[in-house]
């Protein structure tokens, strides 16, 4: 067995073991399913309620992805604007850091105030929450481009745009994709959060409603669905990252943070 195989095997065992222990402990300690339902019960609920849950899953996915896409567009644009000029970078950096350290949850009530409850605040929250890591990463990637790499194009008489396209942006790609992994997770959190407080759709809302009706196993079913979705989204983007920016992890010319 190779090292990676062993690691895979161990992590799978850990996950299976976790649920087994949960199941067994609940039976042994005779825990009420109003407090903590057993995994098998949760699984049954997920299965039987799936037709009802499915539209909510799609809704959450929709808010997340729409918000995320908007966030990426805005983030990349701002990042390029800030990162291409050394001065803009130095000037804007403190503001960006300030913004990115605000707990973005705090914007949900504002969006509800402006747009009412529903899909709009969920999308906007997902967007706002993921913009800053993208801006900061793109800007950093661009601003830290080795001048020697740009010199290659400068001696050929390349324009600023050509340098950006051929050196700056490819150089910033590893930073960009690293930030996408973070950003998609944040967007997802943002969307669910907004759903829990201000929507009648989405998994977040399902959990909220189920909790007020004491449908405990449905609450947990929602939790597990969220976990699975979160992992899937993260996996998609880290796969994409490895595909697109392999050069950065294989070479040693450029370190990626």
């Amino acid at each position, binding site marked *: 067995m190779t090292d990676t195989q062993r690691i895979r095997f161990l992590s799978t065992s850990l996950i299976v073991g976790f649920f087994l222990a949960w199941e067994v402990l609940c039976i042994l300690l005779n825990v009420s399913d109003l407090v903590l339902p057993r995994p098998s019960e949760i699984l049954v609920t997920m299965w039987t309620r799936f037709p009802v849950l499915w539209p909510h899953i799609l809704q959450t996915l929709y808010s997340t992805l729409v918000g995320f896409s908007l966030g990426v567009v805005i983030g990349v644009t701002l990042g390029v604007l800030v990162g291409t000029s050394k001065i803009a970078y130095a000037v804007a950096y403190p503001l960006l850091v300030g913004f990115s350290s605000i707990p973005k949850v705090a914007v949900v009530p504002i969006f509800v105030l402006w747009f009412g409850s529903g899909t709009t605040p969920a999308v906007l929250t997902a967007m706002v929450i993921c913009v800053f890591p993208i801006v900061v990463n793109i800007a950093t990637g661009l601003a830290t481009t080795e001048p020697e790499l740009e*010199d290659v194009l400068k001696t050929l*008489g390349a324009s600023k745009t*050509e340098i950006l396209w051929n*050196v700056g942006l*490819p150089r910033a790609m590893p930073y960009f994709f690293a930030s996408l992994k973070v950003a998609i997770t944040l967007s997802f959190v943002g969307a669910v959060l907004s759903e829990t407080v201000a929507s009648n759709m989405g998994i977040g809302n399902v959990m909220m409603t189920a909790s007020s009706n004491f449908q405990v196993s449905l609450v947990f079913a929602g939790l597990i669905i969220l976990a699975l979705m979160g992992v899937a989204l993260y996996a998609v983007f880290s796969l994409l990252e490895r595909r697109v920016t392999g*050069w950065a992890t294989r070479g040693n010319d*450029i370190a990626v943070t």
Partner: protein
Amino acid sequence: MNMSSNIPARDAQPVQTASVHSRPALELQNASVVFGSGANAVTALTPTNLKMERGDFLALVGPSGCGKSTILKLVSNLLQPSEGLVLVGGKEARAKELRIGMAFQNPTMLPWLTIEQNVMMPLKIVSPFKETYRQDKTGAFRDRVHALLAQVGLKDFAQHYPWQLSGGMLQRSNLCRALVHEPDLLLLDEPFGALDQFTREELWQIMQDLYLDRKPTVLLVTHDLREAGYLANRICVMSARPGRIISDEPVNIPQPRDIGMIYSPAFVEMTQNLRELIAQVRST
């Protein structure tokens, strides 16, 4: 000192080719470079005058840190002179009057591109190639890049990434990238530094063929006096930092030159003289 006096000058070519273009390819007029200001100002280049006619092959030698790379950066407009003028093809360097090919001292291949893509980069940026880049990048341009790579012994490495190549191989790709767009003015900063003697001599011959074929203007920075003598038809020696040009002599040996020539007594004597000159300026 006249280095040419000891060399049997058969039908010696005129060193400064009488050009149909009246304007010199390159001219430094009292160009100087000072980095920083005030107390921590560093003079990289004291006011320097240098003139190259089109078709000149000039080798620039001198002790480390004397400002050779700085001169190349002035010419390629990566640096602006603190004082004085830098004229390329009769216009200020930033006008990009001449098509420039530059091989940097440290090969700076873009790490996300393969060697083929790296070498092709000038064709993507420089007119008239960039206009047809889309159609030709998989056809004519690709063939041109592959032919160049084959010439320097990198035929099998076109699809490799820079980190998969050795230092010497990167330097050879670097040279290809400087040549691929058939520049009028070739700026080479120690392009053969990291190579073994045999590969180096091989590349000298390739370089000479390329030069005689198209007769670009070449400004070669090197520490290797034999390299300077073999390739150039003019050798300038710079003094130690802050540098200035203290000797400017023609090499009156007809081209093409045979590689065996570098072991001939006359050639050895010429390089000896150069060597002594540099030894002097280093110690002062």
